[in-house]
């Protein structure tokens, strides 16, 4: 099964264009090497700004480890996470569920208690020494045990045991923003994007997407030349120039052109910016269907490994394997007060096995297939990696373990295909699990899916 090639915009953004059609990404698509600029904010000594391809600029500690927050979130029953200026992540092993997610009661015994770690053991508080002073939005809070911890914008700060290298965001991501049905999630903290008032940047699976502060997509055109708009009156019926105020000044990637006397237009990386009058939904990609027009990303996510494809479905575009079968990821957060992840190779596998096989390992293996990595395959980025899995346990295999599988993983979690999908474009495994798979289950790896934004 060849990849779908009618979706050049999306395919190009994912860096799949070359393998799909032998062509370079179309003119106007974001440079794959581009890196998002960020606003300079005061930081305490010892901290820096790291670069995550998925999350953009992120704060990092002196070792380069990404810094996270855990904001309090409304669950179906009660709240979990850190209140303002406090940490709820303690050095105490939680043994019972909290009953946060209806309909199940609190007080159930959590799995593998003999191996379970405390929240603090997995999420190291970013310690502040006794002489530390608040700087800008960075403040210092006192933990329950009397030690000091850095906070940013009133959120206590942590690093994740899952992150090994600078730029890793294996502890959490803002890409899947699903509201109250997900666990109270940790997400990376970073400086604001360096964009003028009226603009914003959001992380997507495709890249860091530039949009207005109302979340409407912005576009650039191949018909424009560097620093010059060729969008005439007829063009303006569909494409609305993003007007810059009289006081707007060039800054970094940003500049301003005069469309006509007293009418100025924002320009990003030398390309005049527009919105699309037919866009009705937030974060739309519809304008990119028009020949020569493109959504704008401050930076792109790295492409998936060679051999993956993009498949068209009735719900949008989904990542697929080399045979066109939909790719899924497994996600899990437990129902303890700590809301710990249970989707990593070192997590208790009881959660995953319940959903993939009704507790039966063999049925799970028959139904959900790891995506094997070729012998000579290797990843050239931090989002995709190859992991060795013991299929009998679902845990990471020991070195030289017989029968271990060498499989593809996204943010260190293995990805899967589903036996129930008969043909390319099927996604029958999507949302299988608790809370449509958001708390314990499988989700299709959507590249583009805009049919659910409220109209």
């Amino acid at each position: 099964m060849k990849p779908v090639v009618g979706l050049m915009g999306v395919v190009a953004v994912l860096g799949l264009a070359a393998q799909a059609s032998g062509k370079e990404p179309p003119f106007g698509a974001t440079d794959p090497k581009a890196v998002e600029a960020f606003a300079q904010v005061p930081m305490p000594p010892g901290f820096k700004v790291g670069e995550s391809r998925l999350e953009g600029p992120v704060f990092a500690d002196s070792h380069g480890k990404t810094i996270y927050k855990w904001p309090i979130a409304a669950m179906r029953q009660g709240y979990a996470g850190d209140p303002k200026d406090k940490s709820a992540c303690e050095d105490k092993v939680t043994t019972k569920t909290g009953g946060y997610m209806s309909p199940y009661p609190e007080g159930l015994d959590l799995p593998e208690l003999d191996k379970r770690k405390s929240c603090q053991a997995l999420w190291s508080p970013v310690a502040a020494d006794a002489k530390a002073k608040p700087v800008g939005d960075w403040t210092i809070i006192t933990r329950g045990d009397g030690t000091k911890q850095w906070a940013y914008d009133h959120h206590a700060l942590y690093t994740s045991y899952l992150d090994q290298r600078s730029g890793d965001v294996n502890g959490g991501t803002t890409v899947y923003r699903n509201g109250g049905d997900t666990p109270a999630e940790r997400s990376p903290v970073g400086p604001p994007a360096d964009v003028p008032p009226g603009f914003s940047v959001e992380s997507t699976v495709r890249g860091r997407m530039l949009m207005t502060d109302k979340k409407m997509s912005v576009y650039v055109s191949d018909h424009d030349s560097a620093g010059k708009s060729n969008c005439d009156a007829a063009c303006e019926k569909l494409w609305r120039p993003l007007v810059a105020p009289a006081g707007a000044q060039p800054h970094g990637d940003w500049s301003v052109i005069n469309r006509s006397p007293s009418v100025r237009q924002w320009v990003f990386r030398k390309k005049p910016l527009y919105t699309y009058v037919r866009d009705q939904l937030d974060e739309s990609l519809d304008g990119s269907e028009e020949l020569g027009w493109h959504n704008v990303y401050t930076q792109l996510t790295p492409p998936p490994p060679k051999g993956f494809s993009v498949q068209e479905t009735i719900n949008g575009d989904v990542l697929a394997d080399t045979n066109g079968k939909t790719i899924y990821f497994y996600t899990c957060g437990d129902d303890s007060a700590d809301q710990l992840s249970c989707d990593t190779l070192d997590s208790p596998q009881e959660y995953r096995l319940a959903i993939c096989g009704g507790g039966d390992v063999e049925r799970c293996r028959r139904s959900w297939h790891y995506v094997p990595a070729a012998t000579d395959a290797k990843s050239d980025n931090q989002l995709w990696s190859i992991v060795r899995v013991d299929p009998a346990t679902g845990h990471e295999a020991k070195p030289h373990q017989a029968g271990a599988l060498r499989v593809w993983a996204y943010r260190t979690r293995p990805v899967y295909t589903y036996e129930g999908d008969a043909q390319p474009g099927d996604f029958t495994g999507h949302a299988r699990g608790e809370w449509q798979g958001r708390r314990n289950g499988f989700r299709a790896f959507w590249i583009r899916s805009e049919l659910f934004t409220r109209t």
Partner: protein
Amino acid sequence: MKAYGATLGVLFAVGGAAAADELPISMREHKIGYVTTDLHWSVYQTSNVNTDCPQGLNGNGPRETFKALYPNGGTVEGTQLARESLKMFPEDKGPQFPYILAKGTTAIGLNLDGKQDTGFTSPSGEKGIDNNLFKVIGCNAQYRAPDGQLQLFANKLIHGFNFDRMMIELSNVDDLTNDDDVEVTIYRGHDPLLLDATGESVAPGGSQRVDMKYGRKLIQKMHGRIANGVLTTEPIDGQWPWAIYFDTPTVLHMRDMRLSLKLTAGGANGLIAGYMDVDSYYHWLTSWSTHHLSYGRLDPAEFYWALKNNADAYPDKDGKMTAISSAITINMAQVFIQHPEGGVDVQQRTADVTGARAR
């Protein structure tokens, strides 16, 4: 019949005052389109639930079964995950709790097989109505109007999600009252619904572009006839997208699917009926979380067995029925369907999506 008459100007424009020898503007080129505004699983109910369900409504929802099975709690894997496993694999265990079926003899639906001995008569007196699904859902609070959670929200989301924007277009139409031969094409639209001044109800006269990007697989053709203002189509094995939760696209697969719709220039109201594939239906239902299912005391595994045990068509190789007769009540508003340039060649599109597209 939902009232679409709030915007008099629009009604007039879409053909309310057309002369007999002149097609209304909504039927230009002998075509008329309609877009879905409401979907409900057809449940016949009186104002007295005790009459409809003398044994009461089903009371063994997820909370109740959990409490009965695990009065002293236990481990996550032995309790919560065991129930969630069973939701994924309901055949791992047989039914464990009593399930209350609707026992009434009046049901909304169509006579799907021409036989008279189904035990159901329609509210208007037609015998031989096939709707075994009604037995399963008729005494379940989720499905009962006006405030059953599934009844309410599954319909509400029809307005909100473009994924659910299903339309029909009648072509070769000469007369909305009687016409022996019309073509019906099912499309998905790509635009928000046109709401009336209340902001709640859908007004006729809107326009919808055909979703030719992701909706091609959903294009389906049917033959039909109009008699006394009612469109009746021949059956097809059909699919109808109906997502009932955010970011959770679900599609119903219905064997022998047919439409029976009362047509006007402003709307089409009636039924989608056929044999629901049981697995497809269960998958659709369980796209709701266990939490949401508990609103109506609907335990998914118990429901599965009720569904399976009342399936009445399409036996598998072992003779077990795989589909259940059913009906969906549908309301549609007239809409102007905008086709892409060059029109839509359904056969070509079908070829496209089955393989030739990957070029």
